């Protein structure tokens, strides 16, 4: 029982965000528990990315509070950051580093995942034959997969993803969806925005539409 209370994930209470004097969203509350996925929908400019940046702790919400296992994420700071992995619009892939070097840095900055080495992660996103290629020589879709491989090399419970399927082909989308399914099955959490329908079969999904 205590374990359940301790481990109840991310809770948002009355979140609000104002940008350029415009209220993007207000009084947004949800609870994301282990094994659940949060899918954010909404038109362009409805505040999806802003909400994700708030969930990452990069931006303070203008209203409300965000708690991880019952504690405010801004008070937790790096302790919370060790639990999350974020792949944003700008995917943070360094063009002049090889795929392996990119992942090595990501692994060093987070809490390394004992289950996934760098090679294993590249294997998962089917980039193993490009391990020593500079990122600038990879195609847009391959770079996106490299960015998503970052999710695997650190031990992060909550994955926060902004349009993860951008520039991926159907094969790439399949790979990423199976990563999501494994992550959720292992008790992970997912917060994602996507214009593509995300198919997560029988996973427990919370949908929030910011346009309504």
């Amino acid at each position: 029982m205590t374990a359940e209370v301790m481990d109840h994930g991310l809770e948002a209470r009355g979140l609000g965000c104002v940008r350029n004097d415009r209220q993007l969203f207000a009084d947004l509350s949800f609870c994301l528990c282990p094994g659940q996925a949060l899918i954010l929908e909404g038109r362009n400019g409805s505040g999806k990315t802003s909400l994700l940046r708030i969930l990452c702790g990069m931006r303070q919400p203008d209203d409300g509070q965000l708690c991880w296992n019952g504690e405010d994420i801004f008070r937790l700071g790096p302790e919370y950051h060790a639990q999350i992995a974020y792949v944003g619009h700008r995917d943070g892939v360094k063009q002049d580093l090889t795929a392996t070097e990119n992942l090595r840095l990501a692994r060093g900055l987070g809490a390394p995942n004992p289950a996934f080495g760098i090679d294993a992660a590249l294997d998962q996103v089917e980039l193993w034959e490009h391990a020593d290629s500079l990122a600038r020589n990879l195609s847009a879709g391959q770079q996106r997969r490299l960015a998503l491989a970052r999710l695997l090399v650190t031990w992060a419970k909550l994955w926060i993803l902004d349009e993860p399927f951008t520039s991926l082909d159907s094969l790439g989308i399949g790979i990423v969806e199976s990563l999501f399914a494994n992550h959720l099955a292992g008790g992970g959490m997912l917060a994602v925005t996507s214009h593509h329908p995300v198919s997560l079969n029988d996973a427990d999904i919370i949908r929030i539409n910011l346009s309504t």
Partner: protein
Amino acid sequence: MSTASLNRAFALLLWRDLVLALRRRTELLNPLLFFVLVTTLFPLGIGADPALLSAIAPGIIWVAALLAAMLSLDSVFRSDFEDGSLEQFLISAQPLSVLVLAKVVAHWLITGLPLLIVAPLLGLLLHLSGASIGALLLTLLLGTPVLSLIGAIGVALTVGLRRGGVILSLLVLPLYIPVLIFAADAVASSGAGLPITAHLSLLAALLVLALSLSPLATAAALKISLS
């Protein structure tokens, strides 16, 4: 987070920035070339009178070093900001100020250290005495890291702006003035045979102050720029 993982993150980031600099050598050479060109143009412009040159050499070399440092500042965070790496640093499990310090150390190794290596040659060119060249090297060794550390705060504040260049100069230049005054005066004093311990102590004090406070200020500024 344990100290081991902190050290590892510091070393990894330092290594990464050095590798990146080596793979983009033109950026590496730019400030150095600027430093050498500006300094060598002075004798051409004002004539080759040894007495005059050795009198103004400390000022010339230090002003050129200062401008070269400013020229290179934007590269500290710009590319990381544009490709999203900076966001990853912000939400990494390590404290941002430590990562910032790694980046500034790398920046100094890439842009500050080469100035130290060519400075003796430029000193000779401007007829500085042996003692003055020694003092010049000491002041550069203590002063250029301060330039990188203070500059990082300014870059962190302006990295989110589309045209941050002018504001950056206005922000950072006044803070560079103390370094310039003490350093150039130290070189001139040593040329006149005066002791320079006081100058060096002040520069060292500035370095310690910048080293301990600038990473915190830079980290805070980055958080503001990225939110």
